[in-house]
């Protein structure tokens, strides 16, 4: 034989799993990734569609990070006044901050800049929207119960941080509309009783608008808040793997098992495809729907104001609360507390998010239920919880609608004052109307046999003797599942049982290497 190595020999030398397997083997020798990797690859994901809602949030966060890095390469967080001489003629010769100039240039002079800006903005709107939907899914199915309270807390924190970061990002271009938003934020901080003035001066580095707020918002927006969020998302997912998924009750599903597809190969393919679909939808929206046309708004100037200014949708409930709250103030003891700002913009959101944080503990206390729950409720199983959630959502939705009082009045040609009073009344009564309706529906569904559950299809056949026989059909036609043999565990991650022997001589412990 010659020295030539044949292809077959090379393959054989590569081992059973080829070059990839060998590379992984090398990695495992050094880092011991095999066991953890195996756990990860074998992680079971329930197939129910509602478990995909959180993934929309996860993947829009990924898109936010990617597009955000692109934007940060061109954005200048500076309040220095410059004169614009760019390609957008209606702004030619106008004095503006460098932040606004760089945002306009980013939109018009940078290749794909406008697409990236719009994708970033749409992704932010979708991110928070899907977080809310995901949170609703977790709430109404009781997935936050023991042992998952900590993950619920992390989720609520993530939502809060996402809203804050959305506002910070919205403020960065320093256009007329977002400048108005910063002004409102300043007033909200001012309205905090006793410490408001100090707090506002501390945040803005002096009186409004000052010269430092944009660079402060910038570093918060691109580093501090996303950094915390990234850590929390990671922790959220680690807990998810550690505690395993919840699942809806069903055939073969118990409190002690998880039924679904393994990470590899089924779920990995599904979720990667889903990442691309989220990215594709966001890119399509960025390409076809214009969002936040800052060049039309012009630079911010405290003397200028545009009517019909709303914040992005996730701040809508705050804006709505501010709009409809009556003008109450407290004067006394040498202080003024603007209750018309403090109550709707400081106390109210504090209560809403406080309630969200406290809910798992509240529910434990009320129901006295301290058991572990891995099986989900259907919303109709817990009429009171469902009704409470619907009531809060109704209140928030009404406040959300109240943030567009002027648009409603203009569009439907009604008096603004009528709309204002209508919204005040609707906000006050909506939770009390929504609660009994939701409660009644949930209760009736729960008490109806088979209520809220998908009806089973029957296949009716006629025998030769003329007899009709109805047999329950599989859920999907042609969807007859066969039992699969469990995948054999590859040899290179053979588990070694710990010996359990403890050599405790002189306080020195011996730990076996894996």
């Amino acid at each position, binding site marked *: 034989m010659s020295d030539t190595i044949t292809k077959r020999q090379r393959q054989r030398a590569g081992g059973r799993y080829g070059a990839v397997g060998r590379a992984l083997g090398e990695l495992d020798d050094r880092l011991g990734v095999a066991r953890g990797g195996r756990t990860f690859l074998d992680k079971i994901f329930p197939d129910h569609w509602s478990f995909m809602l959180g993934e929309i949030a996860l993947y829009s966060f990924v898109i936010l990070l990617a597009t955000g890095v692109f934007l940060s390469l061109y954005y200048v967080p500076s309040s220095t006044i410059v004169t614009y001489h760019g390609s957008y003629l*209606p702004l030619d010769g106008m004095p503006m901050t460098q932040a606004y100039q760089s945002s306009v240039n980013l939109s018009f002079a940078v290749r794909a800049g406008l697409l990236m800006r719009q994708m970033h903005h749409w992704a932010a709107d979708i991110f928070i929207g899907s977080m809310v939907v995901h949170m609703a899914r977790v709430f109404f199915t009781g997935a936050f119960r023991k042992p998952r309270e900590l993950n619920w807390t992390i989720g609520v924190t993530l939502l809060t941080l996402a809203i804050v970061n959305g506002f910070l990002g919205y403020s960065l271009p320093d256009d007329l509309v977002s400048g108005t938003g910063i002004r409102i934020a300043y007033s909200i901080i001012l309205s905090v009783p006793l410490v408001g003035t100090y707090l506002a001066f501390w945040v803005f580095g002096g009186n409004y608008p000052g010269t430092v707020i944009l660079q402060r918002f910038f570093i918060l927006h691109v580093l501090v808040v996303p950094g915390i969020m990234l850590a929390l998302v990671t922790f959220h997912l680690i807990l998810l793997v550690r505690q395993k998924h919840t699942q809806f009750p069903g055939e073969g599903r118990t409190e002690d098992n998880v039924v679904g597809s393994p990470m590899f190969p089924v779920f990995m393919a599904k979720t990667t495809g889903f990442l691309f679909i989220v990215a594709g939808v966001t890119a399509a929206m960025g390409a076809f729907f214009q969002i936040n046309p800052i060049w*039309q708004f012009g630079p911010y100037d405290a003397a200028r104001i545009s009517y019909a200014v709303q914040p992005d949708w996730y701040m809508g409930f705050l804006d709505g609360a501010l709009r409809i709250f009556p003008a109450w103030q407290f004067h006394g003891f040498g202080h003024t507390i603007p209750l018309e700002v403090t109550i709707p913009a400081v106390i109210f959101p504090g209560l809403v998010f406080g309630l969200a944080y406290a809910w798992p503990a509240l529910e434990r206390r009320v129901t006295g239920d301290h058991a572990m729950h891995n099986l989900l409720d259907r919303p109709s199983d817990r009429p009171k919880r469902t009704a409470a959630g619907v009531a809060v959502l109704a209140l928030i939705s009404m406040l959300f609608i109240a943030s567009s009082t002027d648009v409603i009045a203009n569009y439907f040609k009604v008096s603004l004052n009528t709309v204002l009073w209508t919204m005040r009344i609707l906000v006050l009564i909506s939770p009390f109307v929504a609660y009994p309706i939701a409660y009644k529906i949930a209760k009736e569904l729960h008490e109806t046999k088979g209520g809220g559950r998908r009806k089973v299809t029957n296949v009716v056949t006629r025998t030769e003797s003329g007899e009709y026989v109805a047999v329950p059909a599989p859920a999907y036609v042609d969807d007859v599942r066969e039992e699969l043999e469990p995948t054999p565990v590859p040899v290179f991650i053979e588990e070694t049982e710990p010996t359990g022997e403890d050599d405790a001589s002189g306080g020195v412990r011996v730990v076996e290497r894996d």
Partner: protein
Amino acid sequence: MNTLRHLARYALAAAAIGAPLAWALPAHAANGPVYQTSRHNAGTPNSDVVTKKNGQITSYGDSAITYNVPSPALAALGQALYLQNCASCHGTEANGVPAAGTTGAFPNLVGLGPATIDFWIESGRMPAADPRAVQAPRRLPRLTHDQALAIAAWINSLSPSYPAIPTVNVKSANVAQGAALFALNCAACHTIEGDGDALARSTFAPSLRNIPATQVAEAIRTGPGNMPRFTGNLSDYQVADIVKYVTTEIQHPRNPGGLGLGGLGPVAEGFVALLVGVAVLALVGFWVGERQ
């Protein structure tokens, strides 16, 4: 409470004394320029160069806007049209007193410049569909351009006054200046994208999306309805700049980013984000996932 009531009484008394005085003022101002109402400083041009014709200002001193008085020859036709279309409310003398009505129920038209008359008729607001409406909405005009000019000519013949009907030379106007002036003077009510919006008590700032250049200039110079009258603080050059910005960028926004979503800002964007973005992705999840 009592203090408030007293204050209100004083205010009423002051108004009762002041109003007739105010109406009397234009009478003795026959030598100087006469503008549509009695507000003293209204219509004082800040331009140094003012063109006068027969003792009245015809231009604010530059070539950006030409003000044309409708031909007096149209007055006879105008009177006939006026009697048919306007007299039932504004009275046969155009003084706001209908035949059996009371003074002050409807606006007095004598002494309003031709631009005011032309604006209200050509924007379709007059003759009013509902005379008791809080604010007359823009409609398809019932009278033609020539008929509007004729009525303006007749009312002007009762007491010649200014501003006359503007013709804006937008070619030489500066759109960037217009954008800045628009943000400063107009956006507070009409919104920065010119869509208009609701104001208090059923009044509203109308959309600017389909207003011809002449009417934009007329509105700025005459201040119809709740709108302030911009005379002394805006030169003709500046008005022309605003008119150019409104008739180009506001009425034909470039929307390089895709669909403009009606210029409604975050309200429309929120709906798109939730009903298109989140909903489509949730549907995809529904499609990918199991539905039992």
